[in-house]
C-alpha cells in the first residue's frame, strides 16, 4: 500500500499531473454540459457533437500529458487552443468554466519541466 502510494507519487512527479488533471476536468465539464445521447450527437452534425469533440480533445490532451509526458509542450499548447475553440464551439466553453480550466491546465502542462533545484528543506509541492 505504501509502496503503491510511493509509486503513484513518483508517477505524479515525473509528468505534468495537475495540468493534465485540469484539462481532463475541463473537458469532462464541457461534455457534461453538452451531453447529447451519442446517437443524436453523431447524427446531429457538428453542433451537437461539438461538446464531445472539444471536451473529448481536452480530455485526450490531458491523458496524453499523463501517459506521454514527452509531448507535454505540444499537448499543452493544443489544450489551450482547444479550450479557446470550445468557447466558440461548445456552450461558451461550458459556461466559461471548461474553457478556464482548459487554459489553466494547458498552460500548466506546457510549462511543466525541470526546475532549478532549491535548497533542501524548502521543497515545494510539485504541481
Amino acid at each position, binding site marked *: 500500500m505504501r509502496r503503491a502510494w510511493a*509509486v503513484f507519487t513518483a508517477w505524479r512527479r515525473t509528468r505534468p499531473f495537475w*495540468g493534465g488533471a485540469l484539462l481532463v476536468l475541463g473537458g469532462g465539464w464541457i461534455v457534461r454540459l453538452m*451531453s447529447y445521447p451519442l446517437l*443524436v450527437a453523431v447524427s446531429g452534425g457538428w453542433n*451537437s457533437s461539438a461538446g464531445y469533440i472539444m471536451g473529448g480533445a481536452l480530455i485526450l490532451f490531458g491523458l496524453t500529458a499523463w501517459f506521454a509526458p514527452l509531448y507535454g509542450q505540444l499537448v499543452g499548447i493544443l489544450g489551450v487552443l482547444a479550450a*479557446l475553440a470550445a468557447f466558440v464551439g461548445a456552450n461558451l466553453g461550458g459556461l466559461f468554466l471548461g474553457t478556464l480550466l482548459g487554459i489553466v491546465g494547458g498552460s500548466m502542462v506546457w510549462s511543466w519541466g525541470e526546475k532549478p*533545484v532549491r535548497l533542501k528543506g524548502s521543497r515545494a509541492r510539485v504541481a
Partner: protein
Amino acid sequence: MTGTSSRASRRLSPRERVSRRTTVLRDRLESRTDDMLARSRSGRRGTRVRALPMMGTGLAAVAAMFMLVSQSVLAVNFTTSDTAYRIYTDRVSGHYAASYINEQTTSSGKKAVVQFGFKAASLNGFCAITQQNLPALGTVSVIITAGEPVDGTTTAPAGQTIEANWLYLASDSLKGNGDQIAKMNLGQSADTLMTDTTAFPGTPGGFGLQAEVMNISKLDTASYGIGLDGQISLPNLKIRVLPGSRTYADCVSS
C-alpha cells in the same frame, strides 16, 4: 508482422506462452517503475513560471472573444440536452419551424418533450435561466442574457437582434403570442416534417406541426434542451451567477 518471435513461441504450449509473456511484462513494468522512482528523486520538475504568460495570453484571448461575441461579431454555438432552462424572449421571428413530441434522454432518465426546430430565428432579447445544484453552494441560477432587455416589450434597438440558425428547443411548455404564423400544418405525420428543405423527422405517425413563418412574441418556454446546427449571435452577452432560484423578473439586470 513480428515474424521471428511469434514463430518461436508457436512451439510452446499456450499456457507456457502466457506465463512467459506475463514474466516478461512484469519484469519490464518493474524496471520501468524503478526508473521512474529514481527519476522522481533526481531533480525537481513542476509547473514553471512560464505558465503565467501562457495563461495570460489564453485568458486575454477568451476575454477578446467574449467582447467579439458580445458585439455580435463572433457567433457561437450553444447546445444542451440535459439541463433544464427557462427561456424568455420578447419576440422570436422564426422561419421554417417544425415541432413534434419526442422523448429526450437526460441524465435523470427519459423525459417527454415537445421538440421545436427553427431553420432561422431572430430574437428580440434572449434570457435563459438554468438552475444548478452545486455542492456546498446549494442552488445557484445561471442567467444568460443577450440582446435587448427581456421585459415584455419589443424595442428592437439597432444591432441588438439575436440571429440563430438551425435552432432547436426541447420543451415541455411554451407560451407566447403567435402574432404571425403562416403555412402551418397541424397533425402532419411527424416523420415527414421539414424545416424548409431539411428533414426534421420525429416518430412515424406521430403528431407534427410545421410552419413556414412562426412569429411569437412574449415567448416563455421551459426547455430541457437547446440545440443549434448553425450559430447564434449574442450581442450584449451577459452571464450572471446568482444564488437561489431566479425567475423572469431577474432577466432585466439591475
